[in-house]
């Protein structure tokens, strides 16, 4: 296979990467040829997608079924005031292509379900989880494990965030090794209920972009087997050990979860009901 030559624009645009030891022309070529899916065009997905686009990821999938709400603008930098009411994937695609027209953005204006997850995820080499609810987080974990794809995980609540990288296979942990089952309905509040410090997803989503780029380029130590905890109020980063669980229902020695599960009902949301409405309902019942 002949190596793809950079265009003149690419040489200049990516000059600061190309001269960087550990990335160089070879690493940049990997980025330009890479396919990354960002699930959720919200707080985490915004910085993750924007940095990945700026870095020159060739094909960037953006998955979100939601529309831009004015309450999103406090932290979701993919969307502008004028975008309120538009599908998030639409304003995301526009913003990303303003940033870097070389990126092919694939807009998935759907909710991820057990029906479409394999088909959508199959087209990408790295998956970035920036979703805002447990059902999709478990679905994405299980699907990436079953497809053998790396998953860059990030999650936030109020002033604190978590990030790690899950790789497929035995001896490496997945999300279910960390938390085997989703919490029962009503035990863990959502961002809509608890609020979220606007800058927080900017930090955690940027960390997800770092890890995705490291995986693609094959540089550094991936955030595997370590869970990064960030407390913005204490301004403290630390890591705790994350171990492969031989009893993990998905990647353990005797898996019990062998097909995809839609957890909506388990988590108290009616099937097909959009999470934001469900969150509002939960809030109203408080």
């Amino acid at each position: 296979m002949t190596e793809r030559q950079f265009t003149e624009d690419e040489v200049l645009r990516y000059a600061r990467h190309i001269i960087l030891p550990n990335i160089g022309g070879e690493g940049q070529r990997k980025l330009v040829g890479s396919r990354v899916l960002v699930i959720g065009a919200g707080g985490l997905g915004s910085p993750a997608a924007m940095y990945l686009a700026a870095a020159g990821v060739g094909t960037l999938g953006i998955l979100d079924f939601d529309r831009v709400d004015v309450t999103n603008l406090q932290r979701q930098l993919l969307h502008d005031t004028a975008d309120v009411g538009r599908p998030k994937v639409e304003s995301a695609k526009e913003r990303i292509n303003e940033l870097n027209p070389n990126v092919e953005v694939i807009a998935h204006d759907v909710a991820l379900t057990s029906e479409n997850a394999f088909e959508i995820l199959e087209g990408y080499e790295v998956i970035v989880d920036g979703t805002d609810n447990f059902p999709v987080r478990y679905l994405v974990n299980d699907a990436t494990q079953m497809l053998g794809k790396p998953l860059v995980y990030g999650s936030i609540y109020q002033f604190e965030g978590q990030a790690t990288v899950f790789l497929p296979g035995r001896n490496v942990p997945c999300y279910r090794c960390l938390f085997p089952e989703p919490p029962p309905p009503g035990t863990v509040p959502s961002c809509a209920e608890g609020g979220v410090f606007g800058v927080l997803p900017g930090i955690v989503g940027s960390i997800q972009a770092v890890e995705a780029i490291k995986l693609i380029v094959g540089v550094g130590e991936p955030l595997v087997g370590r869970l990064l905890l960030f407390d913005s109020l204490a301004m403290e980063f630390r890591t705790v050990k994350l171990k492969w669980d031989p009893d993990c229902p998905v990647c353990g020695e005797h898996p019990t979860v062998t097909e995809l599960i839609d957890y909506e009902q388990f988590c108290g949301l009616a099937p097909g009901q959009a999470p934001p409405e469900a969150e509002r309902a939960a809030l109203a019942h408080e």
Partner: protein
Amino acid sequence: MMPVQVKLPTLLRSHAGGQARIEGEGSTLRELLADLEARHPGLTRNFLSAEGELHRFVNIYVNDEDVRYLGALETEIRTGDIVSILPAVAGG
């Protein structure tokens, strides 16, 4: 017995007067949690079942080790250990 530092996630701070760090005593995690419950009534029912076992959507770390891979609630606690409680969060 020297008190042990316990780090609370944002979610649980309201059960401890808003504090991010609290103190407790005990030679095992189970004893420590019982002491925390005595000092902050209602705190531990957020992560312990009615049978007193740890919920599967909350992890407890002693220093940087998940207690599920140590001795679970029987994990020994030593002076100077830092105990962290970490619930699953899904925000994005």
